[in-house]
C-alpha cells in the first residue's frame, strides 16, 4: 500500500474526512473545539496527544458511539467515502466498514473468548467457512487467545482482553479500523507484534487505520501520517517522518533530548512543559 516514507508527495483520496467538528458532553462540557482530520484510504494515520486531549472523543464521534455517552457532535461534519455519517447509527457505520476498538478493552465479560470473536463477525454474511477462516487467522496472530478460547473473557488478564478486542474487530473484515490505544497494557514484545499485525493487515488486506496512541514512539514508526491533538484542537500535523524529526515532538512525545533517550530518573526536577495552546 502506501509507503510510509513518502506519503506527502502522493496524492491520496481521503476515505474519512472530519471537518471542523465540535463535541459537547452532557450539553455543557465542550471537548472538541474544531477538529479536522483526513484519513487517506489504505493509510495508517496516528492521532497523538496527551491525556484528555480528545483522541478517544474523536474516534467515538466517528464511530457514532458518542450518543451512548451523552455526547453529541454539534458542529462540523464527518464524511466517510463522501457521505455524511455523523448522524448515523453505530451499526450502520460498522456496516459501511468502520469498526472501533475501544479504549479499555470492553470485551463481553460473560462470553468466552471465541464467542467474543464470533460476535465480531456479526455484520458479516459471507458464510461460516469464511468466518472460521478468519477465526484461524486471529488465532494465528494471537496464539495466546487460542489457548484461552474457552475462558470467559472476564477472567482473562488485561493483555489477553486487549488481544481479544483487537481480534474481535478484525473479525468483521472492516475497511477501516479505529484503534484506541492498542498498546495499552501490553507487554513490549506484544506491542511490537500488534503493530506488525496492524502493518501487515494494512498492507495485505488494504485496511485503513486511524489509531489513537500514547506510545508515540511506536505509533510514529508505523504510521504514515500523524495529527497531534491538544485540548480538543489539532495543534500540529504532518507526515510521520516529519513529526519524528520535529524538535518539540521529540522532546515531549518521544522523551528524547539532544543527547538521546533520557532516563526516567532524571526527570525529577520540575520542568514547565511547552504548550502549543493554553
Amino acid at each position, binding site marked *: 500500500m502506501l509507503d510510509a516514507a513518502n506519503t506527502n508527495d502522493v496524492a491520496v483520496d481521503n476515505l474519512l474526512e472530519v471537518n471542523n467538528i465540535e463535541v*459537547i458532553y*452532557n*450539553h*455543557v462540557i*465542550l471537548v472538541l473545539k474544531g477538529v479536522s482530520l483526513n484519513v487517506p484510504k489504505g493509510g495508517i494515520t496516528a492521532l497523538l496527544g496527551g491525556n484528555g486531549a480528545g483522541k478517544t472523543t474523536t474516534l467515538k464521534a466517528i464511530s457514532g458511539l458518542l450518543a451512548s455517552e451523552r455526547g453529541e457532535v454539534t458542529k462540523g461534519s464527518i464524511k466517510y467515502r463522501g457521505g455524511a455519517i455523523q448522524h448515523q447509527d453505530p451499526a450502520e457505520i460498522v456496516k459501511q466498514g468502520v469498526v472501533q476498538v475501544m479504549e479499555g478493552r470492553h470485551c463481553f465479560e460473560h462470553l468466552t473468548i471465541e464467542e467474543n470473536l464470533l460476535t465480531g463477525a456479526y455484520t458479516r454474511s459471507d458464510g461460516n467457512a469464511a468466518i472460521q477462516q478468519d477465526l484461524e487467522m486471529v488465532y494465528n496472530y494471537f496464539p495466546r487467545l487460542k489457548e484461552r478460547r474457552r475462558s470467559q473473557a472476564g477472567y482473562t488478564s488485561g493483555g489477553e482482553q486487549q488481544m481479544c478486542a483487537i481480534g474481535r474487530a478484525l473479525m468483521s473484515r472492516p475497511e477501516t479500523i479505529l484503534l484506541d490505544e492498542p498498546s495499552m497494557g501490553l507487554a513490549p514484545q506484544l506491542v511490537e507484534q500488534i503493530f506488525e499485525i496492524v502493518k501487515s493487515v494494512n498492507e495485505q488486506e488494504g485496511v485503513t487505520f486511524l489509531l489513537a496512541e500514547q506510545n508515540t514512539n511506536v505509533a510514529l514508526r508505523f504510521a504514515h501520517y500523524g495529527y497531534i491533538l491538544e485540548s480538543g484542537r489539532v495543534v500540529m500535523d504532518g507526515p510521520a517522518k516529519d513529526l519524528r524529526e520535529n524538535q518539540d515532538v521529540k522532546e515531549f512525545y518521544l522523551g528524547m533530548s539532544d543527547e538521546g533517550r533520557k532516563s526516567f530518573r532524571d526527570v525529577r526536577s520540575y520542568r514547565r512543559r511547552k504548550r502549543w495552546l493554553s
Partner: protein
Amino acid sequence: MFYREAGDFNTSYAQDQQTFPIRFDRYRYYLVLFIAVFVVPFVVNDYWVNSLFLPFLIYAIAAIGLNILVGYCGQVSLGTGGFMAVGAYACYKLMTAMPEVSMFIHILLAGGITAAVGALFGLPSLRIKGFYLAVATLAAQFFLVWLFNRVPWFYNYSASGQISAPERDTFGILITGPNTEAWATYMFCLIFTVGSALVARNLTRGSVGRKWMAIRDMDIAAEIIGVNPLRAKLTAFAVSSFFIGISGALFFSIYLGAVEVGEAFGINKSFLVLFMIIIGGLGSIFGSFAGAAFLVLLPVLLKIVGVDWLGWPTDIVAHLQLVIVGGLIVVFLIAEPHGLAQLWRVAKEKLRLWPFPH
C-alpha cells in the same frame, strides 16, 4: 449571569465542606426554611396538611432513608414497606404501652427498633448483590407484613386486626387522633423531616458516607482500600431503616391514624418509595425531596386539573394520570438519567454560564 459562584471565596476547609457552598444556594435554602416554619403553619388548613404536606414530608423521610441505602450504598432494597410497618407497629405498641411518654420519644424509639430489624435483614447483602438483593429484600417485605397480620400481639388483639392511633400529645400539644390542629401535625412532621435531612446530610458528607459510596461504586475496590464491607452495608441498612421506621411511625400515627398492614405497607409502598428516589435522583438528599414531591403532588395536581377544572370523568382522569406519570418518568430519564436532582444540577451549570453557551 444571575446565578454564579464568582465572588464566593472559601478560606477554610470547613467552609468548603458546608452543605451549600455557594452563597446564593445558601440564601435560597434559608428562605425555604423560613417560609416552611414561619409562614406555612399560619396559613394551612386541613386539606393542605392532610393531602399534601403530611404525605410529602413523611414520604420525604422514607425517601431519604431509602436513598441512603440505595443511592449512597448501592444496595437496592424493596423492603421499605415492611420496614415502615415495623416503625408503625413499634410506635403503636409504644404509644399504647406508655401513654404518658412524649410522641417525640416514641417516634425516635420506633426508628431505633426498625434500625435493628433492618440491620438483621441486611445480613444477606454481604453475599447477594444488585437486583438479586432487591428481590431478596422482598422476603423481608412479605414476611414482616405476614407477621404483623398473623400475630395478634402486634395489634393488641383488636377484633379488626387494624391498629388505630389513640390521642397523644407532645409538650402538651395534641398531635395524634382526630382533634389535632393542622399546624401542629405539620410542624411535628416538619421537625422530623428537617432533622432527618440534616442528619442524612451529615452522615453522607463524612467518612461513613464515603464508605457507603465506595461500596456502591465498586465494592471490591472499596474492600481492598480498607472498607469493611459488612459493617458499611449493615450500617447503611440500619441508618436507612431508622429513617424509614420514623416515616412509618409518622405515617401511621400522624397521617393516617389507622392502618391495616397489608393495605398500608404492602409491596406497593416499597415500589413507590423506590420510584421516588430514582426519579428524584439517587445519592442526593435534594433528590429525595424532589422525588417525593413528584409522586405525591403530581397526581393530586393532575386530579385537580382534570376533574375539578376540566370536569372529566374521574376514571379517565385516573387512567390518564397513570399515562402521564409514566410518560413523564420516561421523558425525564431521557432528558437526564440521573434524576431530577441531576437535572437541577445541570440546569445550574448552564445558568452559571448563561448567557454564553459554553
